[in-house]
């Protein structure tokens, strides 16, 4: 019983980590950039939803439906932010030394985080979504409704991204650029634009997840780093550029952390995650499911 409950807790939270990580994996796979500012996109998405809701209701509370309406706004805004970042800044260091790309995205991360701190203060904030009955119990397992909504939302976002890449023209262009930018350019794909769209789409998904995180946990200007770090672990679990891999990786990470918290102690959750990261990198650098992970 306890085991199942821990796994349920882990899956519920892991889907959110997964949806953050898919964008991180996509940027890594397509643009070959480790985006250290990815966590900041989660943060900005959370704040977008928070402020839209505040604008509409006067305080950050609302019915589940009203809250869900704010998510497309967060997604749109973050698409713009991601697209602009790639176009103006990140594109300038693509193909250069790995240190430079890391420093640039690190600089972006700091600048965004600190501007957010100046604008919105360090106070943690959360969105209150009102349910008549906040949780239900199935066979002894407690499942909070809002977490279930967030879980479904995260899966939907991930699936939408997957379909977008598989089924649309832009999606195919993104995959083409990821496999061979020169060849893609030869067949008439605007590589710069496509990379910026990749950045935008990845940020948009992260932003949508940020809105869910604002309801079930809370948001703060400095919250981004841990999401970036978890994305590292998940991508290593699932393989670079692999969306199904990142999804399974996220669910796995969530379950491992909650099982650690449940059976050992929550104090060891992060130590276990990071150790697992190293071990997996060494034992299975291509990820548990990916074929896509070369150097």
């Amino acid at each position, binding site marked *: 019983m306890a085991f199942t409950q821990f796994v349920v807790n882990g899956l519920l939270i892991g889907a959110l980590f997964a949806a953050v990580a898919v964008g991180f994996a996509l940027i890594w796979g397509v643009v070959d950039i480790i985006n250290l500012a990815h966590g900041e996109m989660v943060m900005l998405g959370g704040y977008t939803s928070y402020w839209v809701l505040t604008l509409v209701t006067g305080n950050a509370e609302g019915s589940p439906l009203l809250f869900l309406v704010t998510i497309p706004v967060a997604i749109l805004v973050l698409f713009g932010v991601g697209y602009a970042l790639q176009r103006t*800044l990140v594109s300038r260091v693509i193909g250069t030394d790995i240190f430079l790309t890391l420093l640039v995205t690190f600089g972006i991360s*700091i600048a965004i985080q600190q501007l957010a701190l100046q604008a919105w203060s360090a106070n943690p904030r959360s969105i209150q979504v009102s349910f008549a009955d906040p949780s239900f119990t199935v066979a002894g397992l407690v499942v909070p409704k809002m977490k279930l909504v967030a879980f479904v939302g995260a899966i939907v976002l991930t699936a939408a991204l997957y379909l977008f890449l598989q089924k649309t023209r832009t999606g195919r262009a993104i995959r083409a650029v990821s496999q061979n930018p020169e060849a893609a350019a030869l067949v008439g794909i605007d590589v710069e634009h496509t990379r910026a769209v990749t950045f935008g789409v990845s940020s948009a998904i992260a932003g949508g997840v940020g809105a869910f995180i604002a309801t079930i946990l809370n948001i703060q200007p400095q919250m981004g780093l841990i999401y970036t770090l978890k994305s590292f672990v998940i991508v290593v679990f699932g393989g670079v550029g692999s969306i199904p891999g990142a999804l399974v990786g996220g669910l796995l990470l969530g379950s491992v952390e909650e099982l650690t918290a449940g059976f050992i102690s929550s104090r060891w959750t*992060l130590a276990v995650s990071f*150790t697992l990261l190293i071990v997996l990198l060494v034992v299975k650098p291509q990820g548990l499911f990916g074929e896509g992970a070369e150097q």
Partner: protein
Amino acid sequence: MSAESESNSGLLRSLVPPDQVDRLFGVCGAHGWKLLAASAVVGALPPLLGLQQGYYMTVISEMFLFAILALSWDIVGGQTGYPSFGNMAFFGIGAYTTAILIKDFAISFPVAMVVAGLVAVAFAAVIGAVVLRLRGHYFAIATLGVLLAAQQISRNLDITGGASGKILLEVPSGTVFYYLFLGVLVVEMGVVYYLSNTRFGFILNAIRDDEEKATAMGFNTTYYKTAAWMLASLFTGVAGGAYSLFNTFIDPQTAYNGAWNVELIAMALLGGSGTVAGPVIGAFGLHTVIEVVETAFVGWQLVLLGIVVIVTVIGFPEGAVGTLREYASEMEYYKRGGMAATDSGEEVSADE
């Protein structure tokens, strides 16, 4: 980068012609050991000339400390081409080793510091065997993982004092640390300079430029990589060992400071990685600016700094030394009309 420097260096060109800069490189290359000795003497002078223990001594000692760390990072990062985000793990292990030995086992400071260096090297040997098999982004992430895992473990053990860390209020005077950090720095610069002119240094650079080729040429690259990694950990560990006393306390946040790890990289890169003086210059320059900015822009310093990082990295990706070297080599490029190497009598060439 070159486009930018060409567009705005007209005035500079007339004031400091590239061939003079090139000559300066040449002079420095010819007298490396003398310059190192002279700089050690100059560095040792301020306390003798009346620099009192206090703020300035602390700041200069920190500059030496960061120079040690940046140069250590560069042995693996710049010379060998392995971007380590986990060097601060050696630092933390060194720091905790002295803190524990001095506080719990009443071992004397010099002994504890030597042990700190050795423990860091032993740790590096074990970790290196594992992570040095990875390259590029994967190596970067794995080393970051090592740093984070070490930090989490220190937070949860009793011997490290958990999240509270260790407090050491009985410490030597600031002058001791000044000379200690200076001494370690000079020794390290000497070692790196010496090695850069040996087979060992060449092989490290060969690994950076093309590891497969280096292996194909019959070098045991694993051996050389691991040796460089352990050398870096030795100096980083000793510096960490001294730092816990210098700082009077050590906790997981300070000891395994990931932000510092990024700083080290920035210092090495912005000074010029793959060189001996670059990381040192980078460390001195950045640390000076820190101290100024810290007092000048209360509240907004981080926003400003994030922006400065972006602008600098995009504008000057080769670092100060690399930018200058490129500038210096422009003249030769025109003179010889081809791919003239920067043959300033210098093997430790900047990253291409």
